């Protein structure tokens, strides 16, 4: 009798263990499926961390641009809501801030000269491209001109000793030397560009209203016009070229990113409008860093989201 009871209890223990193991496997599989589904919604991009305001500890107020200094492996965040610039290491560690004392007026975008460390900042409030020497804290605002007209700087980029400036007034792009002498222009044939990016030996500019991407040589020759097809974009505002050469278009109102091949055919979209991670709210820009990570300037959520695959 005792033997029978022992056998039964052993059997029951084994069954319980088996049931527990099955439960665990099911749970794990479920979790795996859910996280895979979430990743699929994010186009395979996995959220790594957010850059946030070092003083507030929580979020920026209207971050509008991110500059990536590949040489020094730093992120620079332009926070227009607090008229500040912030630098971070590539792992997200906060390094420094500039501007909270009211030196800047509505900063909108920036670049950094690698050899001297000088910053060039678009100040919308002054309508200037402002040179900042961090060592001696010297700030020199300059009003830009092109062909006799005042230029209203919007997005800027730096490449091979030149500063590229998108003129908000005309929607054209003008390149300048460091002493701010105009060199070449990249003209929109449509309604004006809203954003551009330099990748390799090309400048890619996006005309939002025409839904067209223009690919220029860096000398200013229009090499290709790409019509974006197959996806109804709501309010596209920014462009990035992915590591595989695909065109990434940020849709501010949809809170999503649409991907097109380099003939303009729609491939897929990811992210959606909202407030949690993997969701965007009135985002302003997208950029790929040298590690292939996707960085999203999410103005409405007050953060820079860093994603990788």
């Amino acid at each position, binding site marked *: 009798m005792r033997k029978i009871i022992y056998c039964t209890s052993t059997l029951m223990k084994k069954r319980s263990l088996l049931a527990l193991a099955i439960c665990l496997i099911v749970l794990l599989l479920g979790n795996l499926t859910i996280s895979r589904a979430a990743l699929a919604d994010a186009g395979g991009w996995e959220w790594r961390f957010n850059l946030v305001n070092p003083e507030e500890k929580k979020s920026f107020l209207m971050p509008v641009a991110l500059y990536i200094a590949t040489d020094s492996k730093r992120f620079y965040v332009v926070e*227009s809501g607090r008229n500040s610039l912030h630098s971070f290491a590539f792992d997200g560690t906060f390094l420094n801030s500039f501007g909270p004392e009211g030196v800047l007026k509505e900063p909108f975008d920036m670049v950094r000269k690698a050899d001297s460390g000088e910053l060039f900042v678009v100040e919308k409030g002054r309508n200037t491209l402002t040179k900042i020497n961090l060592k001696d804290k010297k700030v020199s605002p300059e009003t830009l001109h092109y062909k006799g007209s005042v230029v209203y700087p919007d997005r800027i980029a730096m490449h091979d000793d030149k500063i590229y400036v998108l003129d908000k007034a005309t929607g054209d792009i003008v390149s300048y030397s460091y002493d701010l002498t105009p060199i070449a222009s990249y003209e929109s044939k449509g309604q004006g560009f809203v954003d551009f990016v330099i990748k390799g030996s090309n400048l890619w500019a996006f005309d939002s209203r025409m839904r067209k991407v223009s690919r220029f040589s860096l000398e200013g020759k229009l090499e290709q016009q790409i019509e974006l097809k197959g996806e109804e974009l709501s309010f596209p505002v920014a462009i990035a070229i992915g590591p595989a050469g695909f065109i990434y278009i940020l849709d501010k109102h949809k809170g999503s990113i649409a991907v097109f091949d380099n003939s303009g055919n729609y491939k897929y979209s990811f992210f959606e409008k909202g407030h949690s991670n993997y969701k965007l709210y009135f985002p302003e820009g997208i950029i790929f860093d040298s590690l292939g990570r996707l960085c999203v300037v999410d103005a409405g959520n007050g953060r820079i989201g860093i994603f990788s695959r």
Partner: protein
Amino acid sequence: MRILRMMLFVFLLILINSTIALADINCYKCHDKKDFSGRYGHQPVVKGACYECHSPHVAKYKNLLRVKETELCFQCHSKVKKEQVDKKVVHPPFAESNCVACHNPHGSSNKGLLTGSNQGEGCLNCHKDLVDKYKIKHPPFAEGDCGACHNAHSSDRIQLLIDEPDKLCVSCHDGEISSSHKGFPVKVKERACLTCHNPHGSDRPSLVRNVLHEAYKDGCSECHDKAGATPGFEKCLECHDEIGEKINNIHSHQTNKSGNGCINCHSPHASDYENLLRNRQEQVCRKCHFDTWANYVDKPFQHPDRGICSNCHGIHGSGNLAMLKSDGNATCEGCHETQGKFTHPVGDGVLDPRNGQTMTCVTCHYPHGTVYEHNLKLSGSMELCIQCHKNY
């Protein structure tokens, strides 16, 4: 087998009887035939086949219709819906399948069974603001030929136009444009007609719009040089300097290939609208922000005065999210004085746990329009609240 034959016979008898019964119905015994006739007749009425749309005995729908009014027309006219409903701009009655708003389903004196004594009369039943508005009328408008420029169902162009505005003008006025603009410093450019002319009518000769820009009254040279080129922003700001400060902001509406973004929205010469806008404000904004309009236009809960965008948005420039005049609380408090005082806490120090941003009215409300009461973003019964209150 015999039973089966019997059943088949009975079934055939019933079928023949019912057909005879329908054919025998003379609706005009009770309904006056005059009310159903016109120069143009709807084919079922012409054939006397009233039963194609109406059930003579009993029906689930108003007017003894066989199917829902919104579905009935498209049972035959399916091609119309298929081809036209997916356009960018859809006329609201067509979008709502409310065909009888414009068409008489029995007969009419107009082609296409349009209501009214001419084509335009039906249009003016809704577009009342155009009735007797102008001393001098554009002939197609005076004749009620709205279809000369507009497609009544849908279009890919603003205001349901059948072509680009200037192409439409040139299609009739090609020969006379140069001769009637002698003395103009430049060639009359494309897309320029509506800058000065109202396509419906005006109180001025040549349909020049009623309100002239002060500078334009004094002649072209106030703004243009001899070459006649479009002057840049700075020329406008010489008089309207208060706008300059607003434009120098994070968001603005500056871009125009000519280098002068003012003319995106304002006519530099003549207008029929406040502040020399090129059209009603809602139409001006919708030209570029079509997606915003499309996002709320069919929603059951919409903000009043939603067409006056400048009530909430800094339309010349703004440093705030969504180009609001101020932050998401102050903008609303201009009208909703009690908001935030006895409702959910909002404002400084109240942070959205999802992103650390200050809670404002627009955290929970989408002011243009939504499917939820009070313009909430999600259902207020629970769905919205648990976005933040996870343990609710």
